[in-house]
């Protein structure tokens, strides 16, 4: 019964639309808890799907699923506190869309059929559009419009890519179901030219959703306009879901022996994203946009690592997991900052270390983690990717990679220092804070950061084995 795990939130999500405020908040947390329980059960038992042509439990899917579940549960606890503090109209639409969003993302992680995955990724766009429009201002409407338009073009490209893959099947006279696992098995017989074309279109299509430059333009707007819990979900898990589509298509390419081709393209897109993020992060004046650009950077790192292959793929998966944990905690903290200072510009914040000490610990910890300092996992992931790049002889790419990461660190650090230590009063009047720090608005962040920290020193065997299973299909591993 694999399907039950996305059907449950689907049903509760629809119910949440019709419930009064208080109950729909509880339903949000309840669904999160049930979902976490179900995905742990799934992780332990690994059952077969009922519709086995369409759904399958794959190692990379399991990894994303567990991340989604954990994140959603913690974010839902935060959301309840956040909703009490902020004035969001039509709250049941917000909670309902959050739960439906969870359902569609779960479907992405479990889908094995190319078209089921496509439908699920499209459904994530539909479910998340109301989340971005939550504040109902014209700026948020513009962000939603941009998000839907750009992602729709992307999803149309992915559809064309899928058409080309069927063409590769027809020309190669392959008779197999149109699922990722079946196609990986018969990849050698597919027509290479059309398979390449299909890969490019799918990469561009899902890459739009993943936030790879130059298709990333929707991402900063959407992340800064959405309420912070929704931004945390968008950045923490939606981007991973889109990456999953690319990862699985890359598996077919690898099995067909075209990994040099796909790797080069991934490296180019990855580097472009990191460079784009570096240019925009340096002169950023809004902290949520800064975090969004950092997401683009990390997606670039992941794409780069996947393109490098070998130990780099392992590093990419490690980066993916830790980026989700740390970045979602950062976005949740940014929600506290927004409520506290009532302003989204960096220059109107400051002195967080005294004014919001608990949030400061979470935000600063997250900053240290996301910029790749040891003891956090991103450090290990980036190290593996760099080692992998040198081993495969991508010296120039590795050089650009390292230099750009340093630039991003400098820009990021500069802004974080301003928020944390700059003088807030700037003159005579004593400004007051709009938020008293509740415990339930900081400890979800602490747990996320702690999880990332613990995973660095101690990784359970089953988790390690699953990562290895996922990356061996791309020729990756720890050797």
């Amino acid at each position: 019964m694999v399907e039950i795990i996305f059907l449950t939130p689907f049903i509760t999500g629809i119910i949440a639309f019709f419930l009064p405020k208080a109950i729909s908040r509880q339903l949000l947390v309840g669904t999160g808890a049930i979902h976490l329980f179900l995905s742990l059960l799934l992780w332990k038992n690994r059952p077969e799907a009922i519709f086995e042509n369409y759904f399958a439990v794959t190692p990379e899917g399991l990894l994303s699923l567990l991340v989604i579940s954990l994140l959603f549960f913690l974010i839902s606890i935060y959301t309840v506190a956040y909703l009490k503090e902020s004035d969001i109209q039509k709250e049941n639409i917000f909670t309902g869309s959050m739960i439906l969003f969870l359902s569609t993302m779960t479907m992405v992680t479990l889908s094995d059929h190319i078209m089921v995955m496509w439908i699920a990724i499209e459904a994530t766009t539909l479910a998340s559009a109301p989340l971005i429009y939550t504040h109902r201002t014209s700026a948020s409407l513009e962000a939603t419009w941009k998000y839907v338009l750009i992602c729709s073009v992307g999803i149309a490209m992915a559809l064309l890519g899928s058409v080309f893959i069927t063409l590769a099947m027809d020309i190669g006279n392959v008779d197999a179901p149109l699922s990722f696992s079946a196609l990986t098995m018969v990849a050698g017989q597919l027509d290479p030219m059309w398979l390449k074309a299909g890969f490019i279109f799918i990469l561009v299509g899902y890459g739009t959703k993943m936030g790879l430059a130059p298709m990333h333009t929707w991402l900063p707007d959407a992340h800064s306009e959405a309420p912070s819990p929704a931004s945390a979900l968008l950045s923490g898990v939606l981007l991973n879901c889109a990456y999953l589509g690319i990862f699985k298509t890359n598996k077919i390419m690898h099995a067909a022996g075209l990994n040099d081709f796909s790797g080069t393209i991934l490296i180019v897109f990855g580097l472009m994203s990191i460079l784009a993020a570096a240019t925009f992060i340096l002169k950023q004046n809004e902290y949520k946009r800064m975090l969004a650009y950092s997401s683009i950077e990390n997606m670039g790192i992941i794409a780069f690592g996947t393109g490098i292959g070998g130990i780099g793929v392992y590093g990419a998966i490690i980066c993916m997991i830790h980026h989700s944990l740390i970045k979602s905690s950062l976005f949740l903290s940014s929600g506290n900052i927004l409520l506290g200072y009532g302003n989204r510009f960096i220059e109107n914040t400051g002195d967080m270390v005294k004014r919001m000490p608990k949030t400061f610990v979470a935000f600063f910890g997250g900053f240290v983690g996301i910029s790749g300092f040891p003891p956090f996992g991103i450090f290990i992931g980036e190290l593996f990717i760099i080692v992998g790049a040198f081993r495969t002889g991508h010296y120039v790419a590795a050089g650009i990679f390292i230099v750009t990461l340093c630039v991003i660190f400098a820009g990021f650090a500069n802004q974080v220092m301003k928020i944390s230590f700059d003088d807030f009063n700037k003159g005579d009047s004593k400004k007051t804070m709009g938020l008293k720090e509740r415990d339930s608005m900081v400890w979800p962040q602490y747990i996320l950061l702690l999880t990332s920290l613990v995973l660095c020193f101690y990784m359970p065997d089953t988790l390690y084995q699953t990562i290895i299973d996922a990356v061996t299909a791309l020729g990756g591993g720890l050797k």
Partner: protein
Amino acid sequence: MILHPVDTILSLVLLSVLFSFGSSRLPGLIKVLAFQGIVVSMVPFFIGHDMNTGGIFFTFGTLLIRGIIIPMSIFIAIKKVAIKREVEPIVGYHASMLCGLGLIVAATYISRQLNIPSISDYKLLFPTAIALLVAGMFLLMARRNAIAMVLGYIMMENGIYLVGTTISIRARHIVEFGILLDVLAGVMIMAIILQNIKRTFDDVDTAHLRTLKE
């Protein structure tokens, strides 16, 4: 060489691409898109593949949505809500037309190189599909009016539908899901309507404030 009937109507579609590049006002553009939607979704009936009931259902569904429902709803939208009728070009009309001509030539040249066996009887099929796809992208980028952008997006969808539905049965099953893309187009149209309503209300509000002051 005798043209296949499919090629004859497709040549009209190619002309409509040029027409859409040259049209300066929304109603004309909407009519062009409705025409394209109807023709493109009828093409599968003339291509040799077998059609089952589901296929016929989907083809008529696409025809209904792209040829009638979406154009009609946009028409009603621009009538009820005050949306600007000009498409507000970033690239001028004459330059657009020139790009369109170049595009059609390039599309024909590229599809000669590709040589897909299953549709080699239909000379204009693949060129039209590529032309629609790129022309849609062009309208998306070279027009400022939001409705014109949605129309460009629908033109892109038409191109994808034309490729998928004709190459093989398997590909047709895939592009039948393209109907779901129209849901996204619908969401976009709704966003535009919302934005305009919002703007109208804002205007009303400021006018109201001014009258109070006097």
